[in-house]
C-alpha cells in the first residue's frame, strides 16, 4: 500500500497521469505471467484467453 501511495504522489507531482494506464497494463500482465509460472492458477487463466 505504501508503494501505491508513493507512486500516486509521484504521478501527481510530475503530472504524468498518462503513465498510469501503461503501468496498470504492465502490472496486470506482469502479475499474470508471474502467477502462471508453475502455479495452480495457471489452468484457470489459460481458459480466459
Amino acid at each position: 500500500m505504501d508503494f501505491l501511495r508513493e507512486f500516486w504522489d509521484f504521478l501527481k507531482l510530475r503530472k504524468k497521469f498518462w503513465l498510469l494506464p501503461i503501468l496498470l497494463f504492465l502490472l496486470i500482465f506482469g502479475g499474470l505471467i508471474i502467477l502462471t509460472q508453475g502455479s495452480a492458477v495457471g489452468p484457470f487463466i489459460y481458459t480466459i484467453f
Partner: protein
Amino acid sequence: MSKILGISAFYHDSAATMLIDGKIIAAAQEERFTRKKHDSGYPFNAIEFVLKYSKLNLNEVDQIIFFEKPFLKFERLLETFVAFAPRGFKQFCRAMPVWLKEKLFQKKYILNELKRHEKNFKDQSKIFFSDHHLSHAASAFFPSPFEEAVILTADGVGEWATTTVAIGRGNKLDVKKEILFPHSLGLLYSAFTYYTGFKVNSGEYKLMGLAPYGNPIYKEKVKKLIDIKDDGSFKLDQKYFNYATGLTMTNDNFHNLFGQKPRNAQDENITQFHMDIAASIQEVTEEIMIKLARSIRNEYNINNLCLAGGVALNCVANGKILKEKIFDNIWIQPAAGDAGGSLGAALALWHIENNNERIVNSNDDMKGSYLGTEFNQEQIEKELISIGAKFETFEYADLINNTSEYLSNEKAIGWFQGRMEFGPRALGARSILGDPRSDKMQKNLNLKVKYRESFRPFAPSVLREDLSKWFDMDVDSPYMLLVANINLDKKN
C-alpha cells in the same frame, strides 16, 4: 550526533559513505571487498565496513539515503519506450521484468537488504532518495575548498539528466540547467568505447588512454553525430545510435559513417584506425567540455569550478579546461563516478534538506580520499602468516631506502599503507610503484604485473615544489584527475 548513511547501487560502482555531523568518516566501494570490478550489487560489505569503522550499528543511524530516484528512472524508461515505439520493444521486454519485480520497489528492497545488517531494523521513514545529478553536484561542491562555485556534472545518464549546471553557495545548491536523455556526452563516449571493442561503463578510461597514440582524423565525422552549440550544449543525432531502443550502443548508420563494424575484442587487434577514432572522440569531448566551461564562466561570473560525474574522470579533458585558464580554481571530486553518489547524496541530505551550516575547508574535506579500510602491522603480519607468505619487516628508514633502490633498479613495488582510497584512482595507499624514467616500465607493469593492454597509462608522483620543473602545470593535483604535458627539456 547525526549519522547519515549514503548508498549508491544497482547500476555500477556500488558504494557506501558514513557522515557523522556532516564530517566524512568512511567511504568505500563494494568492488574492493567482492573483487568484482564495478560491482553493482547491494553494497553489503561496504555498508558493513562504514558501520564498523564508525562504531555504529544500523539502528543508530539517523538517516539513510539512496543516490537516485527509481520512480523517475522508471518514468524515463516508459517515456522513452513510448517515444520510440515500436522500435525498442525487445529492450523494453528485457528491462520490464526486472523493474516490475525489483527496481520499482527499491525502497522495500533496500529495507530488506538493510535487515541483513540488523535483523530488527524496520524504520522505513529513515530511508530517503536523492537525485542522481544532485548527488554528483553535492559530491563535487560540499567537500570542495570553495565558498561559492559553479558545478558542472556530466555522465551517461541518471534519471533524466545527463549534464547539469548548478551554483553552490554556502550550504545551498541550485540546479540551473540540464541536458536530458538521450542527449548525453557520457553515452557518446561510451558509444565509441563500444565501437572500439571495450566494455561500456568500464572501458571508457581505456579509450582515453588509447587516444594519444592516434591522430584525430575522424573529428569531422564525429561531429556529424552531434550538434554542438556555442555554449557547449549539444544534441546527439539518434539515427546513429541504438542505446535508446536496442541492446547495443551504435547502429549500422554509425558503422557505415566510419567504414568499419565495431571491433570484436575476442579476435580483432587494436589498429591505427581504433587509435585515430579514440583521438577524434577525445578531442570532440574536450571541445564540448571547454565550451561548456567557458559559457558557464561567462554566464555566472564565478571563479571556481567543481566537476563530478563519470565524464569528470576524463583527466585529459580536465587538464585542457585547466590549461585554458577559464576558471581561477578547479576542484574535481576524486570519486566522480557513481560511487561518489553515495557521498554526494549524504552531503545533500545533511546540508540542503537538514539545513546544516557548511564550514569550508581550505584544503578540501576529502582527507586525501583516504576514506577506506585500514590495517595495522599486527593484523597484516597475522594475515601473512596465515597464508604462509615469506616476509621481512623493516624499520621505516630502511623500508624507504630499500624501496628507492629497488625502484631505481627497475623493479615494481606493491605499496600498501594507511586507509584505502575512495574512487577509482590508486593514490599511494594501494598502489603499484615503478620508476617513470625507465623506457620499459609502462610496458612491463602493464603486461607482466597488471596483465592488461600495453598502452595503458600510469600517473607520476612528484614533490609539489618540483611540479613546474617537470610539467606544464602549477596547481595541486592530488587526485590524479588533471593531465598536463611534460616540459620539453624533460622529454627524452
